[in-house]
């Protein structure tokens, strides 16, 4: 059973998933599962902090707090366009690791 005393996001939530949303965007879904975890993340996980994690300007980051699903969703322009010479992760699925490992 997860306790709220933990502060690493990956230990609190059910799953953090990232995926391309087309070649120019990546989207990260935080499945909180529990309402208390969702409420805590909504209060303490700032958009600025997530933007800094992915090295984008905060106004480039779209954020959706979805209470019905207990999900927080972030979408950002891909740091490198999918498949370009400097892309290291074609499907964008490893971006999730950074948020999963973030400590509140």
């Amino acid at each position, binding site marked *: 059973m997860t306790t709220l005393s933990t502060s690493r996001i990956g230990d609190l939530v059910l799953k953090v998933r990232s995926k*391309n949303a087309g*070649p120019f965007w990546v989207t990260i879904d935080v499945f909180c599962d529990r309402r208390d975890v969702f409420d805590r993340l909504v209060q303490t996980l700032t958009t600025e902090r997530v933007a800094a994690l992915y090295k984008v300007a905060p106004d480039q980051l779209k954020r*959706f707090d979805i209470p019905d699903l207990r999900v927080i969703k972030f979408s950002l322009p891909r740091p490198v366009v*999918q*498949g*370009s010479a400097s892309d290291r*992760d074609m*499907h964008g699925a490893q*971006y999730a690791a950074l948020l999963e490992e973030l400590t509140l």
Partner: protein
Amino acid sequence: MTTRVLVPSGVLGLGFDRKALERGVAMSPDIICIDGGSTDSGPFSLGAGQSKYSRAATKSEWRALMQARAQAGVPLVIGTAGTCGTDSTVDWMYDITVELARELGQELRIARLYSSQPMARVADALAAGRITPLPPAPEVRLDDLTNIVALAGAEQIQAALAAGADIVIAGRTTDTATIAALPLTRGDAAGGVWHGAKIAECGALCSTNPTSGVIMVDFDDTGFTVEPLAEGARCTPHSVSAHMLYENSDPFRLFEPGGYLDVTGARYTALDDRRVRVEGSVWVPGPYTVKLEGARIAGYQTTILAILRDAHYARNAQKWVDRLTGFLQSEIRTRMDLSPQDYGLEFRLIGVNGALGVLENRTGDPVEVGVLGVITARSQAEAAEIGKLINPFVLHYPLTDDEELPTFAFPYSPATTDRGALYEFALNHVMALDDPMSAFRIEVTEIRAEVPA
């Protein structure tokens, strides 16, 4: 009117539950729809105009769907045929279909919907101010694109169905268009149609058993009902509503040709432990625009892989590649007369920051480090030549001048691999159309059974 759409899988080529497909056919669907592509695996498919899935896997699955179609006596539609939906992959899919029709003894009317865009059409639209960038859009440069496609919507699929097609092989379409077409023709509620189509486009990904593939959606004049057909698979209000998050930058809005879907007011209700009813989604009509995708060759690549197992080098891998890169740039300048602006040379440290690069914020003490050298040049010959030039140094270069020459692990011989062309996505734009068919064309062919001589 209720319209029943059978979706065998999220994409042709990944497999589906054949028993569940049988169950679906027995439920008398009005149409069978499957997606054939995506940009998700990168720009190669579009750039080269080739399918990413094997012909064998495609043919084996398409055979089962052609048999299901014959049994159900309803149209079968594939969208974005051959991964990228260029004219070349539509024809590739058509060849497979004709081959199967002969093997199965089927007589068919096949409609091919072509989505490739001639450069001149896009250039004219650009000059006329009918092309709008979507953020973040690259600058439009059309002269060197190998392929451009426009994403067809429901209207173009409807036109292909109206031609009396048993099978529609569509080029690039939106993920939802093939599923939405028939219910819209029959007057089902547009909000429910587009929402249901989005939920169904990945097959059973909206259920508790994502790999089972097959699902059924019933559309009507107030919404839709979704039901997975594999044994034990269930749709729940949560599994269905959560699917709007998937590969979608905005979970409440979905843009399509001619408007957008707004699911802010959608209500999800469990009808029983497997089926979910959805109502309250809204379709908001807008200008008729189609999204464009394009790709170009951005260079040619050669790669080299060395493994540093020596603890001294594994620990100092970044320092080693920084020093090595400087040395190699000077060698390449001296021996090939190329400056670093003329080519790309990048070493990625697998075991250090291979996946995330500059975003990586963790450090560790790796047992070994894979050094993946990626060379990008103006021709394959040039990339290969740089690869051969750097090969001995990647194998032996020392961390400092006063140490013995090391020898790292090369996993194969030759150490370099020519990768061919590197493609890049070159458009993130929409093009306005007065008539939905003005950027698409349909070709109808009759396949007759062969009469034995």
